[in-house]
């Protein structure tokens, strides 16, 4: 079963800080602690959902794993090799294995390139195909994502948001990766189109045996597409569990309040649910609270929460929680 499945991605104690420079001399005066010591793994063929509010560090996590941001410390083991130590040609070759699908299909496609060139570019960069072979591959990819091969000659502005996202997916698939980071891949789309893209991502995962890290702020979507879900708050993972458990048996107070805020499209059900209103705003990641980052807004907080660092604890059945009050 899943327990024995091989791990494709293993993230250990990953830390990514961004320095802040200010003053006339542009001296380093502080750090944005975007990702602050997180560890998790993704098995082969599995989808791990990563949820959290804006600014919690979920995008930086995705980018750090692909080494698009330089992590401050920690390691990312991909298929047995540590990416953090890799450089140059070795890293470049490794990158064809990992791709990224972006949120905004209007900003992520080069408006001056036609669709065929956009999708074919990774194949050229990684020397995987050229000439007729490349064109055939592009046509094949277009069909896979539900577009007509004739569309290869057209330019991004001729397409709607949903179609552009399909082009972005085809580009991500072209180098035959095994791992894809979907960063808010459906968030900018309309409800009816969003459903179509979710369906497509699930279909492709099964056909091509892909592994996804699915980053989103939308818990309903994340739960639908993921096998397991990790919840992030202020640069830390506070809970990881299966997508069935996350709704039926959430443990961390932050997960519970986040879930309670998600609206259910049925007034009869929604009115019976109790909303846990969080006090105040998310603290700044430049100067996060000591101890558990959530203690300033937590209803269950006790005195020790502000001093003790919370580590993820195994609660059984693949359920990990970073809170000693549960």
């Amino acid at each position, binding site marked *: 079963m899943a327990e024995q499945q091989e791990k494709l991605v293993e993230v250990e104690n990953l830390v990514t800080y961004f320095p802040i420079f200010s003053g006339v001399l542009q001296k380093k005066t502080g750090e944005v602690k975007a990702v602050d010591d997180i560890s998790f793994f993704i098995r082969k063929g599995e989808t791990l959902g990563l949820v959290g*509010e*804006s600014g919690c560090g979920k995008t930086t996590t995705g980018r750090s794993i692909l080494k698009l941001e330089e992590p401050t410390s920690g390691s990312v083991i991909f298929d047995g090799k540590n990416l953090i130590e890799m450089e140059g040609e070795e890293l470049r070759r490794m990158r064809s294995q990992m791709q990224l699908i972006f949120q905004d299909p209007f900003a992520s496609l080069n408006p001056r390139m036609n669709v065929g060139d956009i999708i074919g570019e990774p194949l050229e960069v990684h020397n995987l195909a050229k000439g007729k072979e490349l064109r055939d591959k592009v046509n094949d990819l277009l069909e896979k994502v539900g577009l007509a091969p004739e569309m290869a000659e057209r330019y991004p502005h001729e397409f*709607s*948001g*949903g*179609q552009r996202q399909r082009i972005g997916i085809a580009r991500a698939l072209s180098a035959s990766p095994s791992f894809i980071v979907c960063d808010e891949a459906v968030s900018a789309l*309309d*409800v*009816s*189109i*969003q*459903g*179509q893209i*979710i*369906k497509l991502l*699930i279909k492709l995962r099964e056909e091509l045996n892909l592994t996804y890290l699915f980053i989103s*702020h*939308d*818990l*309903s*979507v994340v*739960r*639908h597409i993921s096998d397991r879900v990790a919840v992030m708050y202020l640069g830390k993972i506070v809970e990881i569990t299966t*997508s*069935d458990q996350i*709704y039926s048996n959430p443990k961390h107070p932050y997960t519970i*309040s*986040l*879930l309670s*805020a*998600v*609206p*259910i*499209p*049925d*007034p*009869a*059900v*929604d*009115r019976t649910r109790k*909303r846990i*209103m*969080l006090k*105040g*705003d*998310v603290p700044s990641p430049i100067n996060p609270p000591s101890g558990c980052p959530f203690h300033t807004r937590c209803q269950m907080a006790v005195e020790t929460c502000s001093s003790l660092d919370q580590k993820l604890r195994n609660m059984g059945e693949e359920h990990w929680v970073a809170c000693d009050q549960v």
Partner: protein
Amino acid sequence: MEKVLEVKELRTNFYTDEGIVKAVNGLSYHINKGECVGLVGESGCGKSVSAMSVLRLIPYPPGVIEGGEINFKGRNILELSEEEIQEIRGNKISMIFQEPSTSLNPVLSIERQLTETLELHRGMTSKEAKTESVRLLELVGIPDAERRVKDYPHQFSGGMQQRVMIAIALSCSPDLIIADEPTTALDVTVQAQILELLADMRERLGTAVLIITHNLGVVARYVDRLHVMYAGSIVESGLTDEIYANPKHPYTIGLLKSVPRLDKPKTKDLDVIEGMPPNLARLPEGCPFSERCRFVMDQCREEKPVLEEVSEGHFRACFYDADKLN
């Protein structure tokens, strides 16, 4: 019941190089005094244009309000002079937009932005206006209002900025607030807070609220009645509970099915609406939804259905047998 706003057969066109874009195409609805009404539809369905039409804020050229009536407290807004409409805008009808950070003036303090409206529309002295602006900020739940009123927009978080927008909207005790995607740019936890606030204001001040959104889930528990819009006109309307429990238009049914739900067991596949919304410059003959509808009949392609009552207060524009839909 007294009607605050009644829109009848509204048509707004945009004259573009591509042809005439019929953004609002025969739209009719009303809002009763103190009522909270939802207008739901996907991007490009004309929901925002219809709201802008109500305040005659359509840019001309290319936009023209071609016909119909907008009756506000017994007067047709479309027949008013520029001075008369100025008297209504912001004073009797206020608007809240999606992106609070772009709606607020970044170089003016919150106090200045609030007192401006109060002095202009309510004829207050500058001292009175200052006291009133602190009271308004307290009303919308901004902590430490007395000090925060001196701050500038960038010193507030997104949720707090939207609270400031609501305070400005409330400053003239309007009869109607039009909130155009008020929570779309906000995180899910903040989203719940803002909607609670709008609902609370309506309870306490008796202001009617029109919430425009693309998200059926968000408004479920807050609105009394719901209008579902597609390609410039309303396809279904009725009491909120009735629409969610018993949708009678294939588009509404499709929308409700295409979002994954947190409270339901995970389904393997989403039941999504295929295809894309029609180009408003080239609307099909007959029903605008016919190209994507799974119940489509020959009649649908020839004739445009009009809103008809299926049960008390529940209207829909569809030819297909209402009892055979679900």
